[in-house]
């Protein structure tokens, strides 16, 4: 069940969007719980939480862009899609990290590719966990908190966000790769990196959120860069 929020002052436009969501849900076998707000002011006062927000830009009083700016001050994650008849305004959506925008009037044919992207973005923000079998017992951590995994002698080390010491585990990096999933990429035979935790990509290395710099191996560089590229572009 995905929680969808629609902020739109024209009821007919909101209805059109809801109809698209319903059809998309029945075709793809996913269910949505849709909440509607009729002004940006409402949104700013109530600050409702959602998995995905559709925001009209051109609303009387406070605009959707202003509401989005406020949203990003307390929530950097929730995917945001603008719905607008003014494509020129939406061009600047990168400033509030908007995922995408849809031009009104919304047709189902046009809606589908945008919704596909939004679904991928939602899948990313879902908090999956992974069980790490350590010497003192099994630890359960959020996958998004794993910065990277590397090998030293025959042990593998999980480097976690906010923890100075890595967690040592017996096992193989292949198994870790399978458990951690598609947000992770091998940048060298002995190093598995969480693409969501990369702060900077350099030509020969990546810098992680905690400042650690990890180098591409010659054999993996090209493939790893492609994966990071697709991740950064939002293709998965």
């Amino acid at each position, binding site marked *: 069940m995905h929680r969808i929020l629609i902020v739109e002052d024209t009821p007919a436009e909101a209805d059109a969007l809801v109809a698209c969501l319903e059809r998309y849900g029945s075709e793809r076998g996913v269910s949505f719980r849709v909440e509607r707000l009729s002004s940006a002011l409402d949104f700013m006062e109530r600050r409702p939480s959602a998995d995905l927000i559709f925001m009209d830009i051109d609303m009387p009083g406070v605009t959707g862009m202003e509401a989005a700016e406020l949203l990003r001050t307390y929530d950097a994650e929730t995917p945001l899609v603008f719905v607008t008849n003014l*494509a020129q305004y939406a061009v600047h959506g990168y400033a509030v990290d908007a995922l995408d925008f849809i031009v009104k009037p919304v047709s189902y044919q*046009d809606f589908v590719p*945008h919704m596909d992207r939004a679904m991928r973005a939602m899948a990313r923000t879902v908090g999956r966990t992974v069980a790490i079998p350590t010497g003192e017992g099994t630890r359960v951590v959020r996958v998004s908190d794993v910065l990277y995994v590397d090998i030293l002698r025959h042990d593998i080390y999980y480097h976690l966000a906010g923890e100075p010491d890595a967690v040592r585990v017996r096992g193989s990096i292949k198994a870790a790769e399978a458990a951690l999933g598609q947000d992770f990429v091998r940048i060298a035979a002995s190093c598995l990196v969480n693409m969501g935790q990369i702060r900077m990509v350099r030509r020969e290395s990546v*810098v992680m959120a905690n400042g650690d710099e990890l180098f591409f191996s010659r054999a993996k560089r090209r493939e790893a860069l492609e994966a990071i590229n697709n991740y950064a572009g939002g293709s998965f």
Partner: protein
Amino acid sequence: MGGGIGISALMVLVLSVGRIVLGIWLISAPLPLRDGARWRVPLALVSFAAAYGILSLIFLAPVMNGTNAGFYTGQFVAFSLLLISAVGFFLVIYDTSVWTALFCCTAGYTIQNLTSGATELFWTLAGGGAPQSADFFTPLRLGISVSCVVVVYGLSFLLITRYLLSTGLGRLEDRSMIAMMVIVILLIIGFDLVVKWLTDHGVGIVPMLFLRLFHGLACAFTLTMEFELLVRRRVEAERDTMRQVLAERERQYEQARESMAAINARVHDIRHAVGRIADADGVGGEALRELVREVKVYDLRVLTGNEALDTVLTERGLTFARDGVTLSCIADGNAISFMAPADVYALFGSVLDAAATCGGASVSLVVRERLGGVSVHVEATGEEPDAAMLRPAHGIAARYGGTISTLTRDGAWHINLLFPAQG
């Protein structure tokens, strides 16, 4: 006895002509033959052999069997004229310019002369440095000859011919250099004869070794220079092409920028005119207000903060609209300010043109700062486009250290570009 001499003279002729022809072929292999090669090639070869025979009769026969200066002068004249005649026969076979023919003949002749010099060297060494009669058909002499041919021609094939076959020879224009080569090869022929003369007069093994070594180096140096000439010409040609491509890109961008600016100004004027009419009391009413809204929606300007990106988005936006494709873009134009405007125009033009051929109704584009660099994402519904359409994009991205990857997913084609942190 007379018949024996006749046959051996004929064999010498065939072998000598064969070495020269093969040497020239090593250089000319990639050139196109003229129409009617089936009769031209044998005709030219037979004529060349005849020329060799005639030149020998005129210049060598009268002074044959001597070790006097006349014999060597005769050889020099004969071989020089032979080289010049080779150029003529070359043009009978190949469809090319006189200069290319000169180039191939001098280079081929140099290979032949290098081989001949090496043969003489080993032949003299085998005899302990003493002058020997040049009987071509003793097993030793034949063995040395064949070995030298195999080694020198084999190496030339591996080092030069293979390169030429893969890149082609093209037309050579550097006339002064080619003229230089002709003079150099004449000097080498002369020098080779001087060494022979000295050897025949018992100059001693050590000086002879040095002279032969020098002769070999001169040949190798000439070949290197000729090869260098080719490589340099190719690099220059590539640079010229690249410069033309860049100039063409620059021109296209300027043209597009000007036309988009003109269209934008026009739309701007229309919008204001319609707006003024609508504002005037009592005129038009709802229909005009509707028109104002319409015109506002069709305001073409896309302002991303990067003029080249604005231009290409506006321009392609028009063709997309005509074809019923919605183009939605979220773009931070400032993020790509590290690229030259003409490159931005060509890169995004190439990617959007590819996206347009996907056949779907929707194309979206996102340009934003990501991971300390810049990420570009374009997604188009429909089929994967022809990869060749992205060739310019690959070239431009590579120049800025960018990575391009494409994939298809959920019935949409994706292309992602990532430019790593600059510097």
